[in-house]
């Protein structure tokens, strides 16, 4: 039953997102919910907040699969509600342009359903070579911390066509495969609809993009990775899948004026042929732009290749040592 439900929910999530995106793009443009694509020479205007189509596809497909399997698991419901609440937080952020420091707090607040569902369930994190690190009730504190961190990491490594949706699809797909191999079917029910929704969204978000995911899309990408890993007890795999985003965050934090770098150093310059010239502050994207003269599409391919490497590493280490 679970195998059938998983195949059905991938297809359903793909279909809902694929069909919902075009009318959503039209509506968003009508209501002037748009952003400038700054990494192209002509600076075209694109619809913002397309992550709503992903959230719609995920919600519809997950509810269908949950009813089909009769999973009846509090952890699963808690994780699902958390992802939806994080998505709504992202939508509020897209409308009101919240300050960066409020986002982690709101996302941590949105993780309340998963915290409540996790009481007396798990109290340790497993690491390869080190074994289980027992945290007791402190584990409950790690849930909002982990979800807020993951969401904001994926939110910061963004801004290029196809990058956010690509990272979400690769990581959720990887976690889904790992869940199936390990028999964590409940977590797989969460991972696959998100994978299907992000793959469908890539059709509209890939270079040259018609729509941006906005914070709605970027925040749910990280929240999904964190929630799937908590439900499936795959924390180390999720941490490894978030390495590219974590490297980007770390590099930005160790530089001068960590939260005002774009104001101080300016944006990435786009040459006439579309090649990108990075500003003078450290970031993962800038490292790739420095070593080779890249256009936006090549940069996204390089970053997605890095994500594939770390997803494969997460799967491999978990299967070898768990």
């Amino acid at each position, binding site marked *: 039953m679970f195998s059938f439900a998983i195949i059905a929910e991938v297809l359903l999530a793909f279909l809902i997102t694929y069909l919902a995106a075009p009318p959503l793009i039209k509506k968003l443009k009508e209501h002037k919910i748009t952003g400038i694509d700054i990494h192209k020479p002509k600076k075209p205007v694109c619809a913002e907040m397309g992550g709503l189509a992903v959230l719609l596809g995920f919600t519809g497909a997950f509810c269908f699969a949950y009813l089909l399997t009769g999973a009846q698991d509090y952890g699963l419901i808690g994780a699902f509600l958390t992802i939806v609440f994080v998505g709504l937080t992202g939508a509020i952020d897209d409308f009101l342009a919240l300050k960066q420091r409020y986002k982690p707090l709101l996302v941590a607040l949105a993780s309340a359903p998963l915290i409540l569902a996790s009481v007396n369930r798990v109290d340790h*994190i497993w*690491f390869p*070579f*080190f074994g289980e*690190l*027992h*945290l*007791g009730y*402190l584990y409950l504190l790690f849930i909002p911390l982990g979800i807020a961190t993951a969401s904001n990491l994926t939110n910061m490594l963004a801004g290029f066509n196809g990058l956010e949706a690509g990272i979400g699809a690769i990581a959720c797909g990887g976690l889904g495969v790992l869940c199936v191999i390990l028999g964590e079917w409940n977590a797989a029910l969460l991972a696959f609809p998100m994978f299907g929704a992000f793959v469908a969204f890539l059709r509209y978000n890939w270079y040259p993009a018609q729509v941006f995911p906005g914070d709605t899309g970027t925040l749910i990408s990280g929240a999904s990775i964190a929630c799937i890993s908590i439900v499936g007890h795959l924390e180390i795999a999720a941490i*490894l899948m978030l*390495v*590219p985003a*974590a*490297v980007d965050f*770390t*590099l930005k934090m*160790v530089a001068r004026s960590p939260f005002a770098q774009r104001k101080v150093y300016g944006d990435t310059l786009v040459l006439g042929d579309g090649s990108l010239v990075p500003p003078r502050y*450290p970031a993962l994207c800038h*490292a*790739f732009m*420095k*070593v*080779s*003269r*890249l256009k936006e599409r*090549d940069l996204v391919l*390089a970053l997605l*290749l*890095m994500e594939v*490497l770390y997803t494969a*590493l997460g799967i491999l280490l978990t299967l070898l040592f768990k």
Partner: protein
Amino acid sequence: MGFYLHKLSKWSKILFLILFSLEIIVFAFIGMYVAWNLTIAVGGLLKAITTIIGGIAGFAAGSIIFWRFSTILSKGRRA
């Protein structure tokens, strides 16, 4: 080494940089290993937290090395 790497082709450099980024994981592991052994006699919650902090410190060190390496790869000299 830095004097020759910058002469590689575009995608060779990118692949090289992606593979080099694995050193970040090695540094994070070293950080965790050192913290784990420093608190070997303590055990429990303190050991768990110290190990995680050690891992984060190693990760940060690895990230900085990654950035310096990207400069070497781009210019063919030390940053």
